[in-house]
């Protein structure tokens, strides 16, 4: 039972088959996941030590020995070791390994090495000695200007010449490309359904009715699944700026950013769900603010400002309408009241009883601040450049954001967040597509080139990695500055939808 994509003029079919969140979490960490993580970390350690020290150094020898032992243990238990990279994920024996705080830099490095060498899968069915690992890891770290496909051919030839036959390397499968397209379509569906359900939610609250909590739960579960599967597409959709539906798209965007950030911080699936619910509800208090005040374009009177500033506590009261048969959404209430309080509690509303701002409030505050500043609203007809917003969040303590959360947020979006229009030193224009998976390349995102050096705008344009280098080691492209898309008649979201 597969879904059919919507075509112009035809009603969108009601049902499509989706794939559930991939098996991965569960209360018990499986052997494969635990040991798989160990193997990848050992790979990373060996890669780094080979890069930093001579081969005969004891640190290198120990790292190689550890890697060989771990891999051997794995193969002895599971009969094979199959490491596959796909998008931003690493799969070990078809089990996806999650990135979390403890390992994301290491995993990202291994991912990038595999990607540069055109390795889609590394298969081990036999004993791989420390010497074999040493040869392999040395070869893959030699600088190259070859394309990944050619690079893999070169790596295989070198391994064969060195007599290493225990590692089977294959390129990425074509399925990966199809997977990405499917993921993109799913992201779009998730996004639009989320906005629709959020609109229903806030309309119900405004009318004093009880909203459909089941739909809301399913929407947040869908966002969590999407972020866990493939976050790039969904984050890209946050560039959709619908002026009229701002409140609803904003709530969804904050939910997406918050869940993505939470994933980066290592929250479990259920914790991400809690965070997502709180983020989706953070501005629900605006349902109790008169619409004409919310949408006023001119400056607000004292009374009107107080009405808007009341939305955090109004949100708490509104959330008491949402219960169903389970407990009240207490966590969401805390985030609703705290998200404008600032980390030092000097924001609004001022607490009377002792309080320490919750972590989820800090996350939502960062996501909220970013999305609000980069959106066009009734009183902010020109949105602020995302990179400038990021800089402001980072550099201005008066914003009241937790600096470590902001740091993590920048890790998520990059210095130039998705949707930023950039001018490249090649006289091209680009739209930042996604953060670079290499942690040290936060300022060199994956970028969609949307104009040629002659100024012709193109759609959709090619996605390039700004970390790519020329044979002489210099970067192929570098961001010179960020720009306002409207100056060039560009609607950023057209490149994400």
């Amino acid at each position, binding site marked *: *039972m*597969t879904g059919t994509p919507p075509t112009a003029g035809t009603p*969108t079919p009601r*049902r499509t*088959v989706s794939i559930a*969140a991939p*098996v991965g979490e*569960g*209360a*018990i960490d*499986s052997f494969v996941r635990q040991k798989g993580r160990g193997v990848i970390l050992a790979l990373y350690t060996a890669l780094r030590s080979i890069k930093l020290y001579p081969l005969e150094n004891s640190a290198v020898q120990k790292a190689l020995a550890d890697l060989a032992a771990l891999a051997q243990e794995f193969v002895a238990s599971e009969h094979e070791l199959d490491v596959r990279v796909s998008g931003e994920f690493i799969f070990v*024996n078809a*089990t996806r390994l999650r990135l979390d705080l403890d390992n994301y*830099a290491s995993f990202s490095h291994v991912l990038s090495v595999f990607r540069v060498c055109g390795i889609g899968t590394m298969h081990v069915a036999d004993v791989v000695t420390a010497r074999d690992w040493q040869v392999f890891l040395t070869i893959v770290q030699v600088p190259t200007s070859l394309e990944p496909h050619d690079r893999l051919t070169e790596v295989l030839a070198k391994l064969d010449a060195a007599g290493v036959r225990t590692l089977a390397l294959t390129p990425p499968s074509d*399925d990966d490309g199809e997977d990405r397209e499917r993921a993109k379509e799913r992201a779009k569906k998730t996004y*639009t*359904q989320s*906005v*629709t359900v959020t609109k229903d939610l806030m309309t119900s609250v405004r009318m004093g009715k009880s909203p459909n909590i*089941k739909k809301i*739960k*399913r929407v947040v579960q869908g966002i969590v*699944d999407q972020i866990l599967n493939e976050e790039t597409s969904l984050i890209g959709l946050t560039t*959709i700026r*619908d*002026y*009229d539906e701002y409140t609803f798209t904003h709530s969804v965007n904050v939910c997406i950013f918050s869940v993505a950030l939470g994933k980066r911080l*290592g929250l*479990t*699936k259920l914790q991400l769900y809690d965070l997502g619910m709180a983020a989706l509800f953070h501005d629900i208090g605006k349902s109790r603010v008169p619409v004409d005040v919310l949408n006023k374009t001119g400056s607000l009177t004292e009374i009107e400002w107080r009405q808007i500033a009341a939305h955090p506590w109004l949100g*708490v*009261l509104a959330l008491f309408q949402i219960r169903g*048969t389970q407990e009240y959404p*207490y*966590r969401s*209430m*805390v985030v609703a*009241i705290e998200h404008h309080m600032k980390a030092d509690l000097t924001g609004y509303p001022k*607490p009377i009883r002792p309080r320490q701002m*919750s972590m*989820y409030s800090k996350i939502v505050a960062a996501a909220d601040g970013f999305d609000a500043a980069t959106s066009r609203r009734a009183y902010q007809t020109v949105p602020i450049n995302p990179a400038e917003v990021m800089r402001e969040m980072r550099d201005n303590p008066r914003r009241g954001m937790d600096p*470590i959360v902001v*740091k993590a947020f*920048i890790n998520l979006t990059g210095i130039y967040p998705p949707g930023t229009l950039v*001018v490249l*030193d090649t*006289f091209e224009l680009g739209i930042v597509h996604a953060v670079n998976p290499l*942690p040290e390349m*936060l300022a060199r995102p994956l970028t969609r080139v949307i*104009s040629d*050096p*002659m*100024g012709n*705008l193109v759609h959709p344009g090619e996605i390039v990695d700004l970390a790519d280098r020329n044979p002489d080691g210099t970067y192929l492209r570098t*961001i*010179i500055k960020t720009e306002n898309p409207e100056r060039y*008649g*560009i*609607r950023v*979201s057209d490149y994400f939808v």
Partner: protein
Amino acid sequence: MTLPTATPPAGDTGQQELPFPPGPIEALLQLFVKAVRAHQLYMPNNPVYKGAIDAMRAGFAPIWQHAEEFALRFTETEIRWHGRPVLVEASKSSDSLPWTFFKDGVREVTFAKGFEETELVKLLEILQRLRKAAPDEDDLLTMLWEADYAFLRYRYVDLGVEAAPPAQDGGAPPEKPAAEQVQASVRAQIEDPRADVVNMQDFDATLYFLDEKELDYLRREIDREYQSDLRGNVIAILFDIYEHQTAPEVREEISELLETLMLLLLSANHFSNVAYILSESQVVVRRAADITPEQRGRVGMLPERLSAPQPLSQLLQGLDESADLPSQNELTELVQRLQPASLGTIFSWLPKLQNQRVRALVQQAADRLATGNTGELVRLISAPDRGVAMEAMRRSAGLKTQAGVVPIARVLAGGDVELRQAAVAALSEIGSGGALQALERAIEDPDRDVRVAAVRALGSRSHHGVLGRLDATVKGKALRAADLTEKMAFFEAFGALCGEAGLPYLDGLLNGKSMFGRREDPELRACAAIALGKVGGRKAQESLQRASGQKDVVVRNAVNRALRTGGPNS
């Protein structure tokens, strides 16, 4: 193990080549149906239940010999494996396994090796919850998602969410400049850099690496998030809003929310949260600006309302019936916030509580409340409810509340036997001069047990005020008709109090003979011996020695005992 990266095969109609015979799959599904039924009907410790679970677990073994995982597809009435029906249940009811999965959108479930060890029971619990769920409660998809399985995957059709229009930016598309204009603008930007140009050499990406301290901070913050008391936090928020906002409709809404919340928290035994509501309600009444009498009445009266007999009875009843009990501290915290008037209700409930642990919890909590409210405690001694009166007397005694003596004495004078017995015990425990004085009359009580208890208490506390009455009783005819225990109690007390003044009488009883040469009744003589033992001293000893060779066993034993123990303090 393989990942479900491809969409499932279209349609279920065609049968595919089977990787192994369907027998084990069919057998497993029969066991699944039985396990679901067992989970509905039996408790986990029931042998039938355990047998059903074990059988289902064993049912997976033959399948794992052929494959690491297997997928089942669901239609309205069938479960299919590789296109072949392996379970058919025609009725579309909550008892039908295919329908249960199908109706909520699940179309395929894949079980992986290991599922039966750790996740089987979780699935059965979900199916059971689903049977009892109301239409607006969570459906199977939501529950499966929350269960977060490691060895089970599923595909579904999202029936609950409507199709939405395609995502697109709002507003009219912007006007695009000509290529030459774009080129010129880009060149101008490059050649004439402005303030917002980033200097790449200055930028250090390592600024954004989270170091170990920062990682620790984030982990601790996440732990704190989940250790925090969310309900308490929300209660504090509500009271903050109440204090900030003076609009009557806002305060009314919050008052209503607090009342509803209180009921919910009581039902769930979150007593420390309820205690917090009660204490903060008093704070807010003092502190909130512009609070009207009606508002004060509503929010300020929360402790009083919970202390009223009916709501408090509900609380105690709920506690008695609950499987999940609060800690002592939590319950004590709540009870201390109640009004003193709640003591009466608590006392009346104590004897009715079935759960021993609950009774212990409530008793201890009540002790704390009583300690702080002795006035109310004393008042309850005169309560018309005899259970309450008994409890109040008992606790007054425990607290040695002097103010309780007078009302207890009244009970002694007018209550029923059980009450009078309790009064004697209480006065005895209080032990003050006034209490013992009030106890004196009790040695003449119509009830034997009351008399005995009273005289023992007075004797053990050496209350000389009762000597006159004792003397009269000991020498009177009524005691001679009493049983040995009563006689003994009186003589012991007499002995403890009379000193050498009582020697002639006691010696006369023990060793004397009547005009006709007959001795006194052996029981009386034994009592006299014991009393002489209490008197102590040389003369008492001599009197006892004279009787030591007595033939009568009762007398002889008493004499020997008295000689051994001897002394007024024995």
